[in-house]
């Protein structure tokens, strides 16, 4: 084993593990890439590191500069960890309805939390971050939904890792949030083999976000639009909280303790496996289960847990 100079050198190069015992089709393999193995605990370490390092290179970020981002958790946690190591003050606009563990982790890394209304979801947090950033032009606002360094982290990292480890891949399935993972990995894989299908999984966020007063407040991430997301994807589906929780539980049968969004992605992988004749599906396990223990996902009554999940942002 090598000795690493910095914990940040451990970001990426995550392992892929066979979870085909959960596949409903014996001719379809399912493989899971464990992004929870990143030092900050999620796939978001990759984008956070790329966004910070690019800003350092082009001079937008340097000693004493404050970093501001909106996040429902994982990007905030990743940025907070990196900022603490690099000595940048970090502020995060965070919807009030995220799990307590996300808040605790942000505090561990010294982030200043600026709360935004839960009813406005991630949209509201992002709007607030834009307003604050406009008032503080000297701060660095990575803006993960529109920062090309976000998909690039996956185009140069996650994508090539998957291609190296699983060249026989036929389907790639991941969650759709900022679209960074899907656009970066999807574009890389399709350049190598245009036959590879890219499937997106969405949470039913639109139903939770009652604060949306008119459609002009709707939002499609620039990362998605700039990468021709509508053309790049081959399928996009919603996975409901109950099914997400069921598959988060099923993942423990293969020893994977994962967050709820990974359960949603696994549910979609199983649907995909039912539909195709044969193939090799690679899915993303976005983070570990640690940050969701307070929600009772694994052991609570499924109806109660599902009801609770409707009111928190877990994706």
């Amino acid at each position: 084993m090598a000795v690493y100079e910095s914990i940040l050198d451990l970001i990426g190069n995550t392992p892929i593990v066979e979870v085909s015992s959960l596949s409903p089709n014996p001719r379809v393999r399912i493989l899971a890439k464990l992004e929870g193995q990143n030092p900050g605990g999620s796939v978001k370490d990759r984008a956070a590191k790329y966004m910070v390092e690019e800003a350092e290179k082009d001079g937008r970020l340097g000693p004493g500069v404050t970093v501001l981002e909106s996040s429902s958790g994982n990007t905030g946690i990743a940025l907070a960890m990196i900022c603490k190591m690099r000595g940048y003050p970090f502020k995060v606009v965070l919807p009030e309805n995220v799990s307590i563990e996300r808040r605790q982790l942000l505090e561990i890394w010294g982030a200043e939390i600026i709360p935004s209304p839960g009813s406005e979801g991630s949209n509201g947090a992002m709007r607030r971050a834009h307003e604050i950033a406009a008032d503080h032009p000297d701060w660095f606002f990575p803006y993960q939904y529109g920062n090309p360094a976000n998909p690039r982290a996956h185009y140069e990292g996650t994508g090539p890792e998957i291609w190296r480890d699983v060249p026989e891949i036929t389907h790639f399935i991941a969650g759709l949030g900022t679209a960074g993972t899907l656009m970066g990995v999807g574009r890389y894989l399709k350049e190598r083999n245009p036959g590879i299908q890219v499937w997106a999984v969405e949470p039913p966020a639109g139903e939770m976000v009652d604060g949306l007063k008119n459609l002009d407040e709707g939002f499609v991430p620039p990362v998605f639009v700039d990468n021709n997301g509508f053309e790049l994807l081959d399928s996009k589906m919603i996975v409901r909280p109950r099914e997400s929780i069921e598959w988060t539980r099923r993942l423990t049968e293969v020893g994977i303790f994962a967050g709820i969004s990974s359960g949603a992605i696994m549910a979609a992988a199983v649907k995909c496996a039912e539909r195709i004749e044969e193939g090799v599906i690679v899915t993303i396990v976005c983070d570990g289960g640690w940050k969701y223990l307070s929600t009772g996902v694994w052991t609570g009554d499924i109806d109660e847990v599902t009801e609770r999940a409707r009111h928190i942002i877990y994706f």
Partner: protein
Amino acid sequence: MPVSVRLPTIMRTHAGGNSEVTAEGSTVGEVVEDLIRQFPGIAANLRSPEGGIHKFVNLYVNDEDIRYLDKLDTKVGAGDQIAILPAVAGGAA
């Protein structure tokens, strides 16, 4: 054939406050037309000024985005559920 349609909060006021309504049609496009006939108020939320579906509206049949099925020509039948949802920032981040 009557198909069930789930409406987002912002469209419910134009549909008597209902979160779920039924409309007739054998394709998503026909169901949308019938929906607008029944509840003209939702047209402004559903259609773009150019006549297509508003860019911030996602239509799903049984939770799958119709852009990757047959778009407005996607066939629907008894038991299928159409959901209309506004595009919002995913919580992923």
